[in-house]
């Protein structure tokens, strides 16, 4: 069974605490992506699961077994490394079968497993080559082949795509997802790329400074981030976080004032009860680019609100055009149809769907929810 459970896991290097008491439970067949800025401890956490790093405190279970003191080779895992870590003096075939040779698997069985993997990854024609003679994408395949051939309960991926160029990265991403759907094995995947995290994961764990900020399915992470960190880390381009003051003026409003004037954003209906206690104090308004469009273009928005700002920059991306403007002293981005673009420096009427806007408590960083 490919269940993985972490109980109060700590990792210290000297006095430096890298992992600070993480609890996590991963079900069989899940695809969990650990994502976070560099130095947040995501690779260390993966290495604790693989056994390449030793625990300072806590327990790691894989399947029904506690594996704290079990060597990496006996943990029923396979790992794909960022650097691929192929054995440079060995051919592709020897790379893939190295583990089986080490474990003295009979030759026929080895050949059978090799054949299955090479068919799956389409690398038959590379078997006699050395890693130095392969392209980046081919090396990536071989590295995955070496992991797949073990047929483990849990796969560990450590930023496997970050050395590939953009196009290949997207292709391999899809391929990894297909592989997961086909094999149904548990995967723990580390990346700093939040797009990769969103597109692959069944659940995302957003990490920061050795702790997990939020672990949830991608849609929930995106739509209901627990705090400012998760909100600003997930989403590209990032969410605009605008400071405003809660005022009472024909209903509860958020007052955002800058040199262009004052905008009174209506508080999202379901949050009015919670926001009432902030009357006279500051809140942070979080607006994702796709929730800001040209006035009148909001499709299905139930609580729309329009305001006017000067355009700073226009960035066409193809399907959409990004309009960058300043709101409350910070940069905000609107995602509009290409035909809705307007010249730089002109005034523009934006419209937001307040139902999709988020509110954060500036002191705790937590997102306001209807119940709290």
């Amino acid at each position, binding site marked *: 069974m490919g269940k993985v459970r972490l109980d109060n896991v700590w990792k210290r290097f000297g006095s430096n605490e890298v992992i600070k008491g993480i609890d996590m439970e991963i079900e069989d067949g899940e695809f969990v992506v650990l994502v976070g800025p560099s130095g947040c401890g995501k690779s260390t956490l993966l290495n604790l699961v693989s056994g390449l790093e030793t625990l300072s405190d806590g327990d790691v279970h894989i399947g029904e077994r506690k594996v704290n003191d079990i060597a990496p080779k006996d943990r029923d895992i*396979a*790992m794909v490394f960022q650097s691929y*870590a192929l054995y440079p003096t060995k051919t592709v075939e020897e790379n893939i079968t190295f*583990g089986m040779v*080490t474990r003295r698997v009979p030759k026929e069985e080895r050949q059978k497993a090799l054949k299955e993997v090479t068919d799956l990854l389409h690398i038959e024609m590379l078997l006699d080559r050395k890693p130095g003679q392969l392209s980046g994408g081919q090396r990536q395949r071989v590295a995955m082949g070496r992991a797949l051939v073990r047929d483990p309960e849990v796969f560990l991926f450590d930023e496997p795509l970050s050395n590939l160029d953009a196009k290949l990265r997207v292709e391999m991403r899809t391929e990894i997802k297909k592989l997961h759907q086909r094999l149904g094995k548990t995967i723990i995947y580390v990346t700093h790329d939040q797009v990769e995290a969103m597109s692959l994961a069944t659940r995302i764990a957003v990490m920061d400074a050795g702790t997990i900020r939020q672990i949830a399915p991608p849609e929930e992470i995106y739509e209901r981030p627990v705090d400012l960190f998760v909100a600003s880390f997930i989403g590209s381009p990032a969410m605009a976080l605008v400071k405003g003051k809660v005022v009472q003026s024909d209903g509860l409003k958020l007052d955002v004032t800058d040199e262009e004037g004052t905008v009174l954003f209506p508080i999202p209906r379901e949050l009015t009860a919670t926001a009432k206690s902030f009357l006279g104090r500051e809140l942070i308004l979080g607006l994702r680019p796709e929730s800001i469009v040209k006035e009148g273009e909001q499709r299905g928005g139930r609580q729309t609100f329009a305001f006017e700002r000067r355009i700073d920059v226009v960035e066409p991306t193809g399907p959409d055009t990004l309009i960058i403007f300043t709101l409350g002293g910070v940069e905000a981005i609107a995602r509009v149809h290409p035909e809705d673009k307007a010249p730089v420096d002109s005034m523009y009427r934006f419209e937001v769907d307040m139902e999709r806007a988020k509110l954060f408590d500036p002191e705790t960083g937590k997102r306001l929810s209807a119940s709290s």
Partner: protein
Amino acid sequence: MSARQIHGIVRATSPLNTFLRLLLFAILGLFALYYLMPLFVMIATALKPLEEIRTGTLISLPQEPTLEPALRAWDSACVGVRCEGLKPYVWNSMAMVIPAVIISTFLGAINGYALTKWRFRGSDLIFGLMLFGAFIPFQVVLLPMARTLGILGMAGTVPGLVLVHTIYGLAFTTLFFRNFFVGVSDGIVQAAKIDGAGFFGIFFRLMLPMAPPAIVVTVIWQFTQIWNDFLFGVAFTVGDSNPVTVALNNLVASSTGVKEYNVDMAAAIIAAVPTLIVYVFAGKYFIRGLAAGAVKG
């Protein structure tokens, strides 16, 4: 303008430039001459009969080249009271240098691998101390080492010399291999651990096959150092177990009657040839190893 321009060659563009260039080549030529002259004298003298040395000048070419002095130096010149030439001492040196190079290179490879890929608390300190060993002047260790060899019952023997050279070579061999293995991705070792390979499995099956460039550098270095060593040879061996460097000194010092310069020179060449051979053969693999590493990317 000359009709044929060779791409990439910078040509002199003004008279001053031309003058400076001539000056440059004159100085370079002088240095080359300075460097090659002793070699020329040595080879020329070794090929002359004694008669010609007495009558001719130092830099004249041999009129009747002969291998007689070389043959005498090889198996009949007197070293002390023993008149068998350098031959037995060349074998002594071989019996010393081959095991010493193999053992010190092998141990250096394991050290370098352990210090970079299986880091432990204090591994940097240990490496620092080993590096310190590379800077110890060997005169300092002569007496304690002589005592140690005496206790081990290896004083005055070739195996004793092998031990000394192995120990004092470790600082350098470890340094070479550490610097090589530090550039090898740790991921390879981690992947191999997950694949179930252990310390020696990873070393023999993955690390050593990657290391020919480091091995060649280390072998060249160790071979030259140990073969050319005089101090340990003269201090820790006696008579019949002398390495060739000590025997050469004795041969030159123990000529009776007329001084046979041609035999002395030939003997010096004989003593120097093995290191040249190692350079010529291993140097080729060294370059090849570097090139193979470069395209791997």
